[in-house]
């Protein structure tokens, strides 16, 4: 059973990674993102775990203008770490299971299906000091914000030396004071 999640942009009908068959099978997991064109392949985690983890990552660092695609890069990194480190995989799976159990107990549905962020936050508050939560947060704070693709969303311009710095590109262009 291939644990591959493929997400595609329906209007283009172009599958980003592995192809139609796998993606259709993923449709069965209900993970198709309707608006973005990207794929998330997980190997250590199950697709369901990946889905929960993606939501968890969004809830730790919620940015409404950042597509799932960038959070998926972080999930993929955690999945790769879990592949190499059995102890981490165990911690990750147990933590996600525990999170779902808390969600079911409090809201009668799985974590990713709890509708309001504020309600999911109540669950995260209960586990924020756990090594499970902290290991994900500590990884995510680098793996999310260190992607050049998210920088323009914050207005951050990144590398400037090759463009001659800002000496002629607005280092002192502030006029509103």
């Amino acid at each position: 059973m291939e644990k591959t999640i493929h997400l595609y942009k329906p209007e283009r009908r172009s599958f980003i990674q592995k192809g139609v068959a796998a993606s259709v099978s993923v449709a069965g997991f209900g993970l198709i993102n309707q608006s973005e064109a990207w794929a998330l392949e997980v190997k250590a985690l199950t697709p369901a775990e990946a889905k929960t983890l993606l939501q968890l990552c969004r809830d730790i660092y919620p940015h409404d203008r950042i597509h799932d695609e960038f959070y998926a890069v972080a999930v993929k990194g955690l999945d790769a770490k879990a592949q190499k480190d059995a102890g981490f995989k165990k911690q990750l799976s147990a933590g996600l299971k525990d999170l779902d159990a808390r969600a079911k107990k409090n809201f009668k549905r799985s974590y990713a299906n709890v509708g309001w962020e504020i309600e999911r936050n109540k669950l995260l508050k209960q586990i924020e000091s756990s090594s499970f939560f902290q290991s994900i947060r500590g990884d995510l704070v680098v793996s999310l914000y260190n992607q050049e693709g998210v920088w323009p969303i914050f207005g951050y311009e990144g590398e400037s030396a090759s463009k001659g710095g800002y000496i002629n590109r607005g280092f002192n262009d502030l006029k509103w004071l």
Partner: protein
Amino acid sequence: MANKFDLNDESVVVVIGSGAGGGTLATELAIKGVKVVCLEAGGRHEMEDFVNDEWASFGQLAWTDMRMTSGSWRVSRNFPNLPAWIVKAVGGSTTHWAGASIRFQEHEFKTRTVYGNVKGANLLDWPVSLKEMEPWYAKAEDRMGVTRTNGIPGLPGNNNYKILEAGAKKLGYKEVHTGRMAINSQPRDGRGACQQIGFCFQGCKSGAKWSTLYAEIPKGEKTGNLEVRTNCHVYKIEHDSKGMVTGVVYFDKEGKSQRQKARVVAVAGNSIESPRLLLLSASGKYPNGLANSSDQVGRNYMRHMTGSVYATFANPVRMWRGTTMAGIVQDESIHDPKRGFVGGYEMETLSLGIPFMAAFLDPGSWGREFTTALDAYEYMAGMWLVGEDMPQASNRVSLHGKVKDKHGLPVPNVNFDDHANDIAMRDHAYERGIAIYEAAGATRVFPTTPYPSTHNLGTCRMSAKPEDGVVNAYGRTHDIKNLFVSDGSQFTTGGAENPTLTIVALALRQADHIVGLMTKREI
């Protein structure tokens, strides 16, 4: 041409470290005709190798060897193995520094006298005065090309500076300008003018910022008297039966142990590695480590009272554009105990890129309170608060009892607790920093916790009496006459000012002193 010296050449001065202290000392000695082997633990990354990318640059330059921390400081909780953000590379932390170059004030050389007996603080007057230091400061400023000295104009203010200036002037602050910066505002000394690149902390890619890497060491190498040996990590300083040092042993690039003989040894590994090396060099004759008869090696570790204030505004700022720290408010750097603390602090412009802002704005936090701050990043201004912290005997670099490095040597442990004076000063500085930004129209403010230390000071401090410290007024150890300390570990107290200018001035003065002693055959 850069020369090479023999491992058995007993006539060389060995300088350990190539940063502000070591790089300057090694170069100045070479220019004066002294043969120098400078052993640098890191590699050599030239300015074209630097990258405008915070994490990639951190990976390239930062000292990330295992270190431990203890004490109540928040760094120990959030970054337990990264007490300091300093550099392991040729040029040391002068590759990473911001360039702020301000002199100590007169009273900061005699804090025990001026501040009196501050409970819990191990205050001591420096055995050197501002008056004695003035010519060396002047020499250092000229050498480094400090703006607003020697007729060099100030740097132009960037957007982040405009906010700081507007707010500070509304509050009535007078000493507000774009700083005394060792960053060329016009071409000088074969290096061009600042291109307002930003990324000052990631290594200056235009070379406008002074660094020993390209502004000093090549001049030393050109004399034929200086060899910089890279990827050489010194782990022991050796001595003879009379107690004089005879050389050092180090792990070379391949991890092989090598012995370099020496006439004189100068330690300049920054204030964590320098005391660690002296402690690691313990012997039958010096069971507590070299130069440690006072038991002060590693003690009185200072990191400056620091903190930051960021603020968001209704309109864009784009603080990352341009010189990172060319902006200062100096009015609070005075000693005015009516504020509820001794000593003073500076407020200086600062910015981090998105990757580091995420890591350092409020380490460990998550959720929307945190992420909405980052969402407003383009609308954000930032300042760094840097002031004098109190030396305390228990704030200490020591050898860790259990954890070993890749060579099997004990890693350093950095123990730190804020003194009540540090806390009172930080609270005051947060309040003033916030007031500045609110006066400029801030919509939200972020009093931000100290980062891992960039200013590491005091662990081999200068003292008039041997029992009070480790080195004398010239950085020569009280116990061993041909062993010197040449970095910020010498600082008796920290002052409010960014320390590099003082480190360079002390290194130039020490070079003069060492040459004098060698000429008189005293060493």
